[in-house]
C-alpha cells in the first residue's frame, strides 16, 4: 500500500503517460528508460509503474526487467541522470552522440568507453549485434 502510494506520488499517471508517448514510437525500452531517468526511480520501479498504470502488460514488464538498464542506455537518452557535477562527467549531448556512433557501429566498445572518459565500462553499453543479415546481403550482392 505504501509502495503503491509512493509510486503514484513519484510517478503520476499523466506525466508517465506523456513521457511514454514521447518515446514509444522509437522503442518500448527507450520509453521505459525515459520514465526511470526523468522520475529518478529504479528500473524495476519504472517498469512496475508502467504495468500498474496499464501502459504495458505483465509479460512486457517481465521482459524489460529481465535485462537490467545499462548506463549507456541512459546516456542514449541524452538527458542528465547522475548527481549533477559529479566528476568526471561528460555533457549529456556529447554522451548521446558517442552512444549513437556506437549504435551505428562506427565505434568499437573500447573506443566508446574511452570517448566517454571511462564514465562507463564496456558492460554498461547497450547490446548490439556484431553482425547482421543486412550486412551479409550487402556482401553477397557485392561479390564478383
Amino acid at each position, binding site marked *: 500500500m505504501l509502495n503503491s502510494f509512493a509510486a503514484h506520488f513519484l510517478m503520476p499517471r499523466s506525466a508517465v503517460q506523456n513521457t511514454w508517448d514521447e518515446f514509444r514510437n522509437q522503442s518500448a525500452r527507450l520509453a521505459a528508460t525515459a520514465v526511470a531517468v526523468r522520475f529518478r526511480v529504479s528500473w524495476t520501479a519504472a517498469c512496475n509503474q508502467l504495468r500498474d498504470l496499464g501502459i504495458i502488460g505483465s509479460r512486457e514488464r517481465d521482459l524489460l526487467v529481465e535485462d537490467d538498464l545499462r548506463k549507456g542506455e541512459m546516456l542514449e537518452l541524452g538527458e542528465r541522470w547522475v548527481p549533477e557535477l559529479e566528476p568526471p562527467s561528460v555533457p549529456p549531448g556529447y554522451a548521446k552522440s558517442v552512444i549513437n556512433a*556506437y549504435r*551505428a*557501429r*562506427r*565505434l*568499437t*566498445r*573500447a*573506443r*566508446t*568507453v*574511452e*570517448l566517454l572518459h571511462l564514465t562507463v565500462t564496456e558492460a554498461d553499453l547497450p547490446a*548490439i*549485434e*556484431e*553482425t*547482421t*543479415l543486412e*550486412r*551479409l*546481403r550487402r*556482401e*553477397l*550482392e*557485392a*561479390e564478383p
Partner: protein
Amino acid sequence: MTTLVFDNTALNHFAKAGRLTELRTIVEGYQCVAPAEVFSELARAVAEYPALGTISAQDWLKPVELGEIEEIAAFARYKHELGGGPETNIGESAVLAWVSVNGGIAIIDESAATSIGERDGLAIRGSLWLIIHGCKEGKLDRSIAEGIVDDLIDSGMWLPVESGTALFAWAYEEGLLP
C-alpha cells in the same frame, strides 16, 4: 589471385568448431594470410582453448608481417580509431592496415572494424559470407554448410540466425542463392 586476410574471429570459431578442413575447402583458389598479430592473439588463447593450436599448422594460411612504413602508419591509425589497450583490437587493426596497403579482402566479423574499413573503401567480408560463398562456388553442399553454421553457433560465435537451416532459408527467400 585474390588474397583473403583473416582476422581472429573466423579462424577462432572454425577451429573451435572443428571445421578448419571445410574452411580450407572454401578458400581454395584464394591466397590466405593472417597478420602475425592475429597469430599472437590466437596463441595467447591456446591454453584456454587447445583447438586454437591447430591454426598455426594450417599450410594454406601464411603469416604476414607489417614491416613497411606505410603498413605501420596505417596500423597506428586504425589502432587509434578502434581504441583499447595494448592487447585490444590489435588483430583487426593489423588486418585493416595490411589490406589498406596491399589490397585483398579482409575477413572480419566485428561490426565497428567492418564499418571503418568499408568507409575507407576496403573490401570486407564475414564468416557467413565465406560459408555461403563456398556453396555458391560449389565447394560445399547445403547440408554441410548448414552443419558448419550450427557448429559455429555451438562454439559460442554470435550469429544473426538461430541455425544453418534458418540462414539458408533466408538466403533462398532473398534470392541470394541460385
